């Protein structure tokens, strides 16, 4: 799958830009474009949308964009579904738990889940890492820096 992305990458890139550009133009037409004396809120987004779509067309058809091998080698390769889901899951866990569970559970969940994204990570090590970061985090952020999050939600009741 990644190989096909690489080959047709500029087509995909161009297509994405055209899509964003056109939807921007559509959305900004619903705002008042205005006159030159009173330039409306819709004017600039519309221009941006047109430029984006234009760039998209240019990129898709102008295949001689500078080849950046180092960047490619870094970005493409095997799709890392496990890694990605764990990273995103970790952030999501933080968002869901921060108010209902508190800083400590949210931190633990965030670090633990995202750490498990690494294929070579053992569950025990992830747990230890998560625990130490949680303790450190609560001490630093709640007590020292007075961030407005209770370590455990039940402490606020």
């Amino acid at each position, binding site marked *: 799958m990644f190989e096909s992305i690489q080959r047709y990458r500029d087509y995909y890139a161009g297509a994405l830009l055209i899509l964003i550009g056109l939807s921007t133009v559509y959305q900004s037409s619903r705002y008042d474009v205005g006159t030159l004396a009173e330039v409306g809120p819709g004017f600039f987004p519309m221009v941006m949308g047109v430029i984006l779509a234009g760039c998209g067309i240019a990129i898709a058809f102008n295949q001689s964009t500078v080849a950046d091998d180092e960047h490619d080698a870094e970005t493409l390769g095997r799709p890392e579904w496990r890694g990605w889901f764990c990273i995103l899951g970790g952030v999501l866990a933080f968002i869901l738990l921060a108010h209902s569970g508190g800083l400590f559970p949210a931190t633990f969940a965030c670090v633990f889940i995202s750490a498990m994204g690494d294929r070579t990570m053992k569950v025990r090590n992830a747990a230890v890492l998560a625990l130490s970061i949680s303790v450190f985090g609560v001490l630093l952020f709640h007590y020292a820096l007075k961030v407005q*999050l209770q370590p455990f939600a039940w402490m606020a009741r």
Partner: protein
Amino acid sequence: MTGTAIADLIHGFSVALQPHNFLACLIGVLMGNIVGVLPGMGVMAAISILLPLTFAMPPVAAILMLAGIYYGAQYGGAICSILLNLPCHPPHAVTCLDGYPLTKQGKGGTALGITMLGSFVGASFGITQMIFFAPILVSVALKFGPAEVCSLMLLGLLAGSTLARGSALKGIAMTTFGLLLGIFGTDVTTGLERFTFGFPELADGIEIVGLALGLFGIAEFMKSVNKVEPLKVGYAKVRLRDMRPSRADLKMSAFPIMRGTLIGSLCSLIPGTGPTIASFVAYATEKKVSKTPERFGRGAIEGVAAPESSTHSSVQGDFIPTMSLGIPGDSVMALLLAALTIQGITPGPQLISQHPDIFWGLIASFWVGNILLVFLNVPMIGLWVKLLTIPYKYLYPSALFFVCIGVYSTNNSLFQVGETLVIGVAGYILLMLGFHPAPILLGFVLGPRFEENFRRAMLLSRGDLKVFIERPISAAFLTVCVILLVGQLYVRWRSKGRVVTVDAIAVEES
């Protein structure tokens, strides 16, 4: 003026070095440094934590401490950018571009060393400027009306869209995309909410900290998970001596540091431009004036020295309009002003004459603080660099947590942590398609100011476009824009011609 300034400065030092003032300054810079190292951790949040403490303190100590947090935070910010490719705060996003490649080449410690030097020089210049040139600079800054700022922003956008490596076309697309993201939120001129899709949390726009950490943090983690090996190269046994920049490095950094410092000072005076814009402009300038622009993005030391110097000089320069006019350049300055007001002191044109202790004590404390920071940070370079030997699989989950809490702490908003997440995913998709994220940040910061000032200029001139050319400062910026554009196109045309010639020669020889 110069004569009395020196005498006043000496008086200022006598104030700043009094034990309780010195202690306040120390606590401030220490706290600022810590806050600066933590990704996303808001300087605003830190200042508002210490604010109640200052009610009980004498005004001089209070302002020294709060100011210390502000410029102290800048010192910590470069560390993660260079070593981990994670900008702690938006002004340091640009430092990642060349800082991280340097780290990969084993020169991370050197990069940090140069950063410290550039930071100190930048800050010192900003301070000196404040002492001697404040009145002139303020009067120049006041001449900047909407037309001037608009033309300046245009210049910045044009210069910076070719900031990152790779295709110029993709750079322009990313700058435009950033501009578009900057428009999300409430329109200043009409109060209309644009692109908020019904979310009141988006009424104030996308949070810049979330944007920076999403694009440079989450997207990078997604790119690197399971792929990155710990950088054992050159870091296994690190000694302080190894991290000292070589003479060659120093020579290459000298002019960039000077240029960056100047750019930072200029940016600090123009209302509404801050350290972020300063760092981007400094980087773009270096790339433009360099004889070897291809090196940028691959570990050019100038690309680290210039932005960092400009950030620091801009931060120190930010105090000028605040202290001399009572006009805060950004929300952090507004907070400092409020702290002074509570103490019964209203900054303004009379501050220097009515409260010389505060003004000169503050300036002297800048130097004291910066020296303290250099002493704090330089020995720590070794420690930070050791961080790199920790396997990536332990680093990135911890960094992810810091990103979450950092973004949360900026506005106590979990929605914004969610924004960061979405931006991170989008950023990774863009990376996969061959785009670079840095110009997005540039467009995001400069774009809204460009639009806002364009519309304001049109409001004031009642629709007359000529105002951009009639006002001299604006005309000057526009001229530079034209020169830039023409220059770019000319270079492209020439290089195409050269390629043909080389091919022709090759054909002839065969």
